[in-house]
């Protein structure tokens, strides 16, 4: 941490010396976007200053209960990233810090920061929480949406990183009135420091990533819904906290007014979104999904809840989103009502809410127990001011709008942007952009890579093999957390009686700095070769103790922990005697285990510092450029004879850009880049190897080849950017008349034969052709915007052209809502033809009918709004046909051993937090191969893949996991269950004895993650995970039971 004290603001200290290009990056914002960018940069050899204005990183994602579409616990998937960022040797975490300004040019910048006083010394604080108990001040807890209270000294949330609390200086009695001081009195390590001052710090950086986020739309924008007046009207973020097990109601769904369990709960969509009257004309891109998710989770918590979501268009445009919505309706009984809600009123007696709403059938009134406002995202005023200080341009809504070809760029050179600071977006897009921004930021500083970042140097290790075990047992009081319940001295005495224990002692805080030093001294003094700590959770503290062992020259795996806090003193606070007995048993078990632990050596693997990019469309080319710009060699393989992919048939973007001109530019850059080797007319024949060490055979087709016919490429990573295809419609008489064309053909017509387009006089477009139906249940994501784009183009060609769009939901999500608004302003008529929100449920009665009469299409459709049949005889019928995966995607997937989803798109490692990774290390993806998307999204994803690739390519060596699976070939029956089960393709059965032909499983330690799935499933007990062996577990169980 920055530890500059009482700095003179007029003469700020420069923390770092000044090399030519500074190999450091300032990351502004400690939400998931900032954290991801920081981790990627720090893993790629850059020093990172991660600046967060609140007291802990985590951002909005830390407030969420579950995430769609996988219903993963948000904190469970976020927390490891936060811990990693907090501990990373190359990340300097700067919380409670504001950015005052950044001066200089890319490569050489100085950031002025103000670090506000926490009044708690981060170096001393152990995070025990004793100080929070005695604080007499009670204030509304902002993190919990004001639904519970916090103290004047408080931790932002339970799992906060850093875990130290802060003092709210405006409300602390000591700081405001010089009274109280209870927290300092209660702190046993003297970490409270009322004398701390704000300080100004300057850091030298080469570039800046701004991932400052956004906030939810203030509910006063729609005061007619009564939030703030009616207690049972809550925001969606408040509802997330209500759902959360660590939230104000501990996960019980209750009404704020009276604590009663609600039955009927309504979600109102588009609060502060899609509403030009309040200058929020954009769609917030995520609310439809989070509302449906909240409804599903509420129903799962409390089956008697009847959730209803009132929406305008169901914008479930992402991968597996439509399936999620369908399941919400069918399996969870979530009621979806397409309606407008003018106002909400409260029955003052009961606090029930009376909602009037307009559907296509007219006005209705209904009583609800609770109403949740699905608030959109808005750029907060302080970020608008920050942007001004940083000299970055914002769009009219206050977002740092990027451009199509540089989605993570900004108006200021050297500044990259990511996440909802850039545009409204959900977590996967934010994480993608963050990795992309990291790639851009890293690309600018490639020459300074490694100049300011530290490589981990392991300390020399004492060889303890062959020595009889000498165990040191350290039992922690954790202040009063453990010591208040468990008789710690008695446990220490007991530990002394255990076999192989050479030393036992108690610590007030085992994790505090001075105790760490004491443990190191004790290891040396007593020649300990095993250490057991009985304290809190290994999840948070094991890495710390392992580091201590390493510093004392012991292999970090000669260690075991007993959790006598969470699993003992916390849960048995009322039974002190029994708790002490249980603590003894847990200690006995951990000692039995640690005696069996063996040192695990680290294994180093070399890295081939080049990438293979498969696919030469926009995604592939962008990935290749970004990797090459970061200083690594790239082989780009494209099976067509020309680069460009699908984009070669796109003429104009919705933003009005000339695609072909920019595409030619991009192809030119790729072809002439000194670090990119282009192989067109070539296909991948075989891929061998693993992360850091791939060997790929490329076959070039004779007539289209640009390189030698059979080529072997050695590379360290792979980027899959093989794209997808437009589907040729088989419905609506396509092919039966030249007046029935696809959206893509219309675009070409507008671009090249605009006169012919004008002659059409009237144009009808049909949306969702072949999409969102039982055979292809996904939304193709781009067709609504494409249709709107072409509709606008037609109207601009000739305002007298009649344009009708027959649709199910208009999904111009995010800032694309602008084009939809523009289309309506220009007089494009939108007619909805389907009544159901979910896919597959497209009801056949309402699907448009197309016939050809006298060579011309005749379209009949039932307008759901006016409930009447309408017949068109358009000059042109345009079909918005969807995007389908490449039929041969499975071949590449098989070669790379990576999965496809049920629809045939490549399946990422984690939909939320690893959107461009595969579970198999060293393989990344970008573009339409993953799912349909727009050009800017493809570019962002390609850069993200490049950013992730750099975390591998920037290393001299990869260190394989040490806690990997290990097979005893004498026990292995070669049944191959492990082979089929392994998610990482890290284990396979091979002949291990040529003479007898005996087969056994063999582990590839470079790929193994040590998850233990194979070991747990191995009936023969032939597989052990090093460091967590069957024997160790059995010994521990045996010790616990005896």
């Amino acid at each position: 941490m920055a530890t500059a004290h009482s700095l003179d603001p007029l003469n700020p200290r420069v923390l770092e010396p000044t090399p030519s290009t500074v190999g450091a990056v300032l990351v502004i914002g400690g939400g998931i976007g900032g954290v991801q960018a920081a981790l990627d940069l720090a893993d790629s050899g850059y020093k990172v200053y991660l600046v967060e204005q609140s007291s802990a990183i985590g951002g909005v994602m830390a407030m969420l209960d579950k995430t769609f579409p996988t219903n993963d616990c948000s904190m469970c998937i976020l927390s490891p990233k936060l811990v990693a960022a907090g501990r990373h040797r190359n990340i300097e975490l700067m919380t409670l810090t504001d950015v005052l300004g950044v001066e200089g040019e890319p490569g050489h910048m100085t950031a002025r920061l103000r670090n506000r006083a926490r009044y708690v010394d981060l170096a001393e604080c152990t995070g025990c929480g004793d100080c929070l108990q005695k604080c007499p001040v009670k204030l509304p807890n902002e993190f919990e949406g004001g639904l519970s209270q916090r103290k004047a000294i408080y931790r932002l949330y339970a799992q906060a990183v850093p875990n130290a609390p802060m003092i709210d200086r405006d409300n602390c009695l000591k700081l405001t009135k010089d009274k109280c001081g209870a927290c300092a009195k209660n702190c046993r390590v003297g970490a409270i420091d009322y004398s701390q001052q704000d300080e100004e710090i300057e850091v030298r950086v080469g570039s800046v990533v701004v991932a400052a986020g956004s906030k939810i739309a203030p509910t006063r924008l729609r005061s007619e819904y009564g939030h703030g007046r009616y207690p049972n009207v809550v925001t969606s973020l408040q509802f997330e906290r209500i759902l959360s097990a660590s939230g104000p109601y501990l996960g019980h769904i209750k009404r704020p007014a009276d604590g009663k369990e609600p039955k009927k709960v309504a979600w109102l969509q588009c609060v502060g979104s899609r509403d030009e009257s309040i200058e929020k004309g954009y769609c917030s891109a995520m609310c439809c999904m989070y509302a449906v998710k909240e409804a599903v989770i509420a129903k799962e918590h409390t089956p008697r809840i009847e959730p209803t979501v009132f929406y305008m268009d169901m914008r479930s445009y992402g991968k597996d989103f439509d399936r999620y919505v369908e399941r919400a309706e069918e399996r969870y009984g979530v009621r979806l009502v397409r309606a407008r809600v003018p106002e909400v009123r409260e029955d003052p007696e009961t606090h029930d809410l009376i909602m009037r709403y307009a559907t296509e059938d007219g006005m209705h009134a209904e009583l609800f127990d609770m109403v949740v406002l699905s608030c959109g995202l808005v750029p907060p005023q302080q970020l608008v001011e920050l942007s001004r200080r940083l000299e970055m341009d914002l769009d009219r809504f206050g977002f740092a709008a990027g451009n199509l070809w540089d989605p993570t760029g900004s108006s200021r050179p050297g500044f990259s942007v990511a996440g909802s600071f850039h545009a409204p977006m959900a977590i996967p897009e934010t994480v993608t952009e963050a990795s992309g921004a990291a790639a851009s930021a890293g690309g600018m500083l490639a020459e300074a890579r490694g100049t300011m970042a530290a490589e981990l140097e392991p300390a020399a290790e004492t060889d303890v093999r062959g020595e009889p075990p000498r165990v040191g047992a350290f039992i922690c009081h954790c202040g009063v957390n453990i010591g208040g319940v468990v008789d710690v001295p008695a446990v220490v005495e007991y530990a002394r009686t255990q076999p192989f224990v050479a030393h036992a002692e108690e610590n007030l805080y085992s994790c505090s700095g001075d105790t760490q030093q004491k443990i190191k001294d004790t290891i040396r003094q007593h020649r300990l070769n095993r250490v057991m700590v009985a304290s809190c959770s290994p999840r948070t503290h094991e890495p710390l103790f392992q580091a201590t062992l390493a510093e004392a020259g012991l292999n970090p795996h000669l260690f075991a922990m007993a959790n006598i806090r969470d699993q003992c003193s916390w849960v048995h606070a009322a039974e002190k005697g029994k708790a002490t007995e249980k603590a003894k048993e847990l200690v006995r078990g951990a000692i039995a285990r640690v005696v069996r632990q063996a040192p695990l050596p680290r294994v180093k693997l070399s890295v081939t510092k080049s990438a293979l990019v498969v696919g030469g469309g926009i995604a592939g080319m962008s990935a290749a450029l970004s990797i090459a710009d970061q200083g690594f060699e790239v082989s780009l393989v494209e099976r067509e004879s020309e680069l460009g992919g699908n984009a070669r048939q796109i003429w104009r973007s919705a933003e009005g850009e000339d695609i072909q001109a920019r595409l030619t530019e991009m192809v030119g850059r790729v072809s002439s880049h000194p670090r990119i080797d282009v192989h067109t007319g070539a296909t991948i024949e075989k891929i061998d190897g693993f992360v850091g060490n791939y060997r790929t055979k490329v076959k070039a087709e004779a007539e289209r080849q640009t390189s030698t016919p059979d080529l072997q490429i050695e590379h360290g990573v792979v980027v899959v950017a093989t794209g997808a295809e437009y589907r040729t419609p088989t419905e609506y008489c396509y092919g039966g008349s030249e007046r029935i064309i696809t959206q893509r053909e219309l675009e070409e017509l507008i671009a090249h034969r605009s006169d012919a387009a004008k002659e059409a006089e009237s144009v009808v477009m049909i949306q969702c052709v072949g999409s969102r139906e039982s055979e292809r249940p996904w939304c193709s994501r781009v067709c609504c915007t494409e249709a709107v784009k072409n509709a606008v183009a037609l109207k601009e060609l000739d305002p007298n052209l009649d344009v009708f769009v027959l649709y199910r939901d208009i999904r111009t999500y995010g800032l694309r809502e602008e084009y939809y608004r523009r289309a309506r302003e220009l007089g494009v008529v939108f007619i909805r033809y389907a009544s159901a929100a979910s896919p597959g449920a497209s009801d056949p009665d309402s699907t448009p009918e197309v016939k050809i009469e006298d060579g011309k299409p005749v379209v009949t459709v039932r307008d759901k709004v006016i409930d009447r049949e309408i017949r068109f005889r358009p000059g042109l019928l345009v079909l918005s046909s969807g995007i389908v995966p490449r039929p041969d995607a499975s071949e590449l997937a098989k070669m790379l051993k990576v999965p496809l989803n049920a629809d045939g798109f490549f399946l990422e490692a984690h939909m939320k937090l690893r959107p461009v990774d595969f579970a198999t290390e060293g393989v990344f993806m970008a573009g339409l191969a993953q799912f349909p998307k727009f050009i800017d999204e493809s570019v962002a994803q390609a850069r993200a893949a490049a950013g992730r690739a750099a975390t591998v390519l920037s290393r001299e060596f990869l260190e394989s996991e040490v806690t990997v699976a290990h097979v005893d070939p004498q026990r292995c029956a070669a049944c191959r269950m492990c082979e089929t089960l392994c998610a990482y393709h890290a284990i396979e059965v091979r002949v291990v004895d040529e003479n007898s032909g005996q087969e056994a499983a063999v582990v590839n330690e470079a790929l193994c993650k040590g998850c233990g799935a194979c070991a747990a499933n191995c009936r023969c007990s032939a597989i052990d995970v090093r460091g967590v062996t069957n024997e160790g577990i059995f010994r521990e169980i045996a010790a616990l039971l005896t």
Partner: protein
Amino acid sequence: MAVSGMLKVKDKNPEATLEELLAGWLTQGKLSAILVPVLAKSGAAGAALVSDADRIAGTAPLLPAMAVNAASVVRDIAKLRSEGTKVGVLLRPCEMRAVVELIKLRQVLADNLVLVGIDCPGTYKAAGFRDVAGTDSDFDNRHVREQQNYYDNPNLRTACQVCEHPKPMVYDLEIGFLGLDPDKELWLDGATDKGAALLEGVELAAGEEPGQMQEYLKELAARRKNKAETRIKELDEAAMGPENLTRYFADCLNCHNCMRVCPVCYCRECFFDSENFQRRLDEHVRVSKRKGLTRMPSETLLFHLTRMNHMMTSCVACGICEDSCPAGIALLPLFKKVSGNVQAEFGYLSGRSLDEELPLVGFREDEFTAIGEG
């Protein structure tokens, strides 16, 4: 290419007819050897790998007695890769199902095997079979001939009395007689190229599978299902709850016979025989001190539960474990119930097909959603 049809039975002696067929495969060089049930002169039932056609006459293809599940033998002889030989294995339906599981578990390499499945109306325990069969040289034929009497034969092995799968489900060649008059004809179905090759040159009355076979099976399955349900009800009363279950296994000697004879138990060394279960004397004393007494041998219940845990998805309910238990523990009903329930949960039936994925190797998002979070 599939070939099927009726084989005419000579002299009302189906067993002899079959022996002639089997001997033919050896003399014509279609097979290098064949695994067939035998009844030794001493009266001991078992199986033999026969390579000399002349020795086929001493075998008993229709022998209604089961000493081991022959899948265990197949596992022992056909695990390693081998070349230049083709061996036929004549297996009863439960034996065939176990072999199918073992193929899926890579414990049997089927490349050099020809799987010949034969219908089975039920078998007697090998021990004591000589007392049942006596000196009746026509006993085997009588057993298949008098199928009507085998709906509810209380002398059959308990597993057979409740068996609902008396016909092989996976095979290269099936020899069928259930529902037919085996004195007149046998149904041969060469379902694969391997199976069809064995029927080359064999005179068959071509035709479809006769309908009466299916009718007979339906009736048999229904009656046995009833019986199985009754047995499981009895079991629920006897073994439900931890106390009853402990009592159920109370007589266990810890001999591990049940594991050794189990056709689908395939570890090279049983975990329970490994040093993980060896304890120091002082540790034994500490265990004892908890309650003041530990029953010896210890961990017998853990052994059975672990074995159950490991085998439930592949158990074919052949009951050979029960036959081999010297303490007479009624293992079959328990294993049949638990394996039946477990397999039903996965929509799986052990040995039904080579293509069905083993339950525990596939992950499906929608399965067991009621368990765990969310």
